[in-house]
């Protein structure tokens, strides 16, 4: 096994296991318990935990501090980092800060646009984009150099990830864009929430046709629906989300008190089907403010127990 970093996530993927990651959104406050409590709920059922970075541009506790909390619990964090809020000095600096706590996974993102959040009147940065952030982390790790060219003493050792959205438009560049991220140096991707399984399979096939599944670990993004209202919201209001009508209907036709269970069931069925697709290397389960359901999903989908790797 040819590992490039001490990342546990990398080890699990390299060993050929289906990896399972999940995510925790930091609180809108400074209470560390919010993070540790969420992490406690899922820690035995996942290999690594993403900490989102001011998602939807709403100001929260910083991803790095929350990742450190996970580290202190002995868990494996994935530091999400958006280019929206940091210029290249801040990005590199935060990467070193994370490396100082031996955080070994990073997810490079552009971030939701500022206008969605609580600081719509603020200035956005976008000095680099996600593609260039991937290059930057790889450059820092592999060359041991800053973007400015100077040597880094004790370079970061990070397994480099990014997002991929098979459902956004234009569809024909979705696979080329994945190829571009791979060329930039990405090692794993976590996809947008998958509801349209046919379209995802089409995307995977196109990716396989180019052999991309052998160059990057693709973790399928899953988010269970809590009710029909959430399904409708995701379908109509969330940019780049593809929720088929049948799925909305299936939830809507379920009695209200059973919709949550149905949502979990749909999610588990989807995982079962996606497990069989060549090139799917694992699952990224984003149970938004519903972390307690992650163990149930992981177990029912046959992904438990998690492999033990030291």
């Amino acid at each position, binding site marked *: 096994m040819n590992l490039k970093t001490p990342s546990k996530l990398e080890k699990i993927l390299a060993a050929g296991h289906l990896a399972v990651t999940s995510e925790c959104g930091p609180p809108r406050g400074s209470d560390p318990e919010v993070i540790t409590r969420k992490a406690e709920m899922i820690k035995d059922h996942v290999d690594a935990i993403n900490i989102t970075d001011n998602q939807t541009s709403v100001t929260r506790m910083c991803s790095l501090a929350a990742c450190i909390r996970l580290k202190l619990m002995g868990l494996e964090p994935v530091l999400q980092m958006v280019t929206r809020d940091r210029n290249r000095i801040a990005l590199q600096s935060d990467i070193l800060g994370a490396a100082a706590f031996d955080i070994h996974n990073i997810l490079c993102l552009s971030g939701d*646009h500022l206008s969605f959040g609580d600081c719509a009147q603020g200035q*956005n940065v976008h000095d680099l*984009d996600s*593609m*260039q952030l991937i290059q930057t982390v790889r450059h820092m790790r592999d060359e041991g150099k800053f973007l400015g060219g100077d040597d880094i003493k004790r370079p970061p050792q990070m397994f480099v990830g990014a997002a991929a959205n098979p459902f956004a*438009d*234009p569809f024909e560049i979705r696979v080329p864009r994945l190829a*571009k991220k791979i060329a930039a140096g990405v090692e794993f991707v976590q996809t947008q929430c998958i509801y349209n399984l046919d379209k995802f399979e089409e995307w995977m096939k196109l990716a396989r046709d180019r052999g991309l599944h052998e160059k990057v670990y693709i973790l399928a993004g899953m988010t269970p629906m809590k009710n029909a209202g959430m399904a409708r919201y995701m379908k109509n209001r969330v*940019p780049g989300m593809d929720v088929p009508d049948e799925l909305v209907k299936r939830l809507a036709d379920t009695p209200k008190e059973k919709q949550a269970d149905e949502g979990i069931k749909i999610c588990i069925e989807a995982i079962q089907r996606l497990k069989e697709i060549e090139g799917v290397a694992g699952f990224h389960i984003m149970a938004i403010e519903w972390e307690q359901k992650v163990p149930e999903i992981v177990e029912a989908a046959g992904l438990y127990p998690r492999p033990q790797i030291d």
Partner: protein
Amino acid sequence: MIVADKKPIEEIIEQVKDKKTVLVLGCNECVTVCEAGGKKEVGILASALRMYFLNQGQEIKIDEVTLERQCDHEYLEEIRDVIDRYDAVVSIACGVGVQFMAEKYHSTPIFPGVNTCFLGVTEERGLWTERCQACGSCILATTGGICPVSRCAKRLLNGPCGGSTGGKCEISKEVDCAWQLIVDRLKALDKMDDFETIAPVKDWSTDRAGGPRKVNREDVQP
């Protein structure tokens, strides 16, 4: 052109309410085309201000002049003989004109009468949209002639992001996704191979990030 939009009259009233003589100064260039600061707008603003102050029982003399440009010495010089007659000037040229006036007529207060918005085009009468952010280092050759710096909400040099839906940007269904436009153009030009070339980290020092900029052309200097 430089696109500007009118400031609310209330804001301008607030700026000049303590003055006795005010010159409303227009510009015949970009702001005339975007109907914010040309001769006609000078007339409307001056008339409205005259009526307002008269109605308030305040005697303020408000005159109107529209210059060919406010961004060149020679045209600004045209008002040198009369500038001392005014306690203040409301310039409805773009911010460039306002500043050049302020630099030239050091002791006369100059107030902006428009909000300077962006470098853009007239898509149709009454609709102006942005095309350029003057980053100082043009990349249009690699993006099919469509600029992601000015037209992508996240100015992604390697877009589109995951929010592009039906050709529209995630911030609004009213905004085209720049990268959809780029992809459409690259296809039309049979240049889709270019899409997979990674745009490198950009040197923003030619942008506003590098501080105030100048173009210094010794070859054309006298």
